[in-house]
């Protein structure tokens, strides 16, 4: 009987294609919204986000406005629970929300090597350490900007030589460019010798992050610049607060897409069943059970929804994988990445929506009066 369903869909191929196309577009958007939310969750949760702290200048937001003494690192390092402190200069071309934000993190190359799990796709640590203006570039930025090892990349006052392209288990990190700390500090126009934007604090396994953060702020209160110390995840969530609100709102867009697929497939299936009510009556007159007629309609609606949903999901995953997109603000980046979870949720949502969309017309096909339906012809 599945052959009957497939042939019916093929016979009305314009309607089928339009419905599948509509469902695909809606599921594409649904997966994109899902990818943004997953990116935000990745950025603000997980061990990296919870087990390291960011020390920032008090009441400052954009990296360009935070100026902390570099030697705060020595003070912080002496405190209980602290494993290592990475003084970091951050430079961004745009403090507002943007899809093509460029963020430089300047830090000591050896500390970077110790504290980051970077996997080089081209170049390496050696060539990074060999030149003062060398930079290692996350693969998403490299892809977006078309950069390869040996290229010179200039933006604003900064000009760097690409010494490596890296992948990272943290997708947002693949949107960063690392240089040496001195290079960023001594770049013309920045005038930040002896100053850094933030200190990144790696904690010992037994340390309580919130207690250490409070102790750091307390200790540095007497220094020349007061600080605000937060877990890295909380820091990034706070930095991206405006975007977080927007992303929170965007999840309604995801639900709207599901609703759109539901109404689209339900409308198509209802119209299809009403056009062919006589056909379902003929089938039942021949001996097809009402439940089988019900299942035939449900199969039709599920096939439409799955075809469109899976197509849209696959296209979205391909676009996410290929595009290396990220949205950022104030130096923090949310990377959009494809994931197995996204693929599964796209397929499951399509299946469930297909079942829901087919319920009412399936009931109609299974319970229609055979005599009345046969007379319609």
């Amino acid at each position, binding site marked *: 009987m599945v*052959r*009957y369903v497939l042939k*019916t869909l093929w016979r009305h191929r314009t309607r089928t294609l339009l419905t599948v196309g509509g469902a695909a577009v809606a599921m594409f958007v649904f997966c994109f919204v899902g990818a943004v939310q997953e990116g935000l969750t990745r950025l603000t949760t997980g061990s990296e986000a919870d087990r390291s702290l960011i020390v920032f200048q008090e009441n400052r937001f954009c990296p360009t406005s935070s100026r902390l003494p570099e030697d705060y690192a020595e003070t912080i390092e002496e405190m209980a629970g602290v494993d290592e402190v990475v003084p970091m200069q951050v430079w961004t071309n745009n403090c507002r929300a943007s899809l093509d934000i460029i963020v430089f993190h300047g830090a000591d190359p050896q500390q970077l090597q110790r504290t980051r799990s970077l996997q080089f796709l081209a170049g390496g640590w050696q060539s990074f350490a060999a030149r003062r203006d060398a930079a290692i570039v996350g693969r998403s930025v490299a892809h977006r900007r078309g950069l390869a090892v040996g290229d010179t990349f200039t933006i604003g006052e900064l000009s760097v030589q690409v010494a490596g392209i890296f992948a990272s288990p943290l997708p947002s990190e693949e949107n960063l460019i690392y240089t040496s700390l001195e290079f960023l500090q001594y770049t013309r126009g920045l005038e930040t010798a002896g100053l850094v934007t933030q200190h990144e604090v790696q904690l010992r396994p037994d340390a309580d992050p919130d207690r250490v953060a409070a102790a750091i702020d307390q200790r540095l209160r007497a220094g020349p610049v007061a600080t605000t110390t937060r877990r890295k995840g909380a820091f990034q969530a706070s930095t991206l607060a405006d975007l977080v609100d927007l992303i929170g709102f965007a999840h309604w867009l995801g639900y709207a897409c599901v609703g759109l697929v539901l109404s689209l497939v339900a409308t198509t299936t209802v119209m299809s069943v009403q056009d062919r009510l006589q056909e379902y009556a003929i089938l039942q007159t*021949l001996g*097809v*059970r*009402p439940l089988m007629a019900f299942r035939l309609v449900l199969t039709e609606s599920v096939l439409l929804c799955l075809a469109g949903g899976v197509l849209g999901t696959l296209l979205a995953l391909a676009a996410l994988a290929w595009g290396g997109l990220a949205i950022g603000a104030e130096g923090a980046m949310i990377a959009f990445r494809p994931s197995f979870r996204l693929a599964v949720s796209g397929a499951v949502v399509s299946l469930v929506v297909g079942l829901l969309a087919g319920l009412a017309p399936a009931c109609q096909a299974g319970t229609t009066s*055979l005599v009345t339906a046969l007379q319609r*012809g």
Partner: protein
Amino acid sequence: MALVELNQVCKSFQAGEETITPLAEVDLSIEEGEFFALMGPSGTGKSTLLNLVSGIDRPDAGTITVAGTEITGLSRTKLADWRAAHLGYIFQTHNLIPVLTAYENVELPTLLLKLSARERRQRVELALEAVGLGDRGAHYPRQLSGGQEQRVGIARAIVAHPKVVVADEPTGSLDSDTSEQIQVLLQRLNRELNITLLMVTHEAEVAAIASRQLILDRGQFREREAVH
């Protein structure tokens, strides 16, 4: 025992404020192998009776027994199973499934029975041969003439080897030449395959091919002499 037996069957419809009673305490029995024609003008309840015997409609009162099964008390699902196993239905307007080929249309009722693929194929091929369309299996309904479509409809009705085949105005939508061919075919099926046929028609010359004819008039039957 009769193959089809109607006992005090009543059926009424509400048309606005008026109650129409096409069948009022009707009794009827049709023997196995009989070719039974029911005649009467339009609106006298011939098709209603056919629908009741087929189990696609229910009587207001009385009992209907077909092939030993009292079908009036069966659920919709059980009726579907019963139809699949015991009943063939020939529609006036062929009612083939347009997306399926002639072969697939004929195959449909066999998919509802527990048959092997080989047996199913044999039955479909035999049924198509029986109606003279052995070479038209791959054609879609739109590629067939009205007469050929009706032949496919007949093949579909007999492919499951039903106990009884009901035909609702089987020649009603055909020209006279094609109608004659279908009449000959129905007669052959009744004589050569011993299929019990219950046919409804308003055409006297079509009814004449049946071995027994009744006229339904004001809710009651009246005998009509068979012309042979």
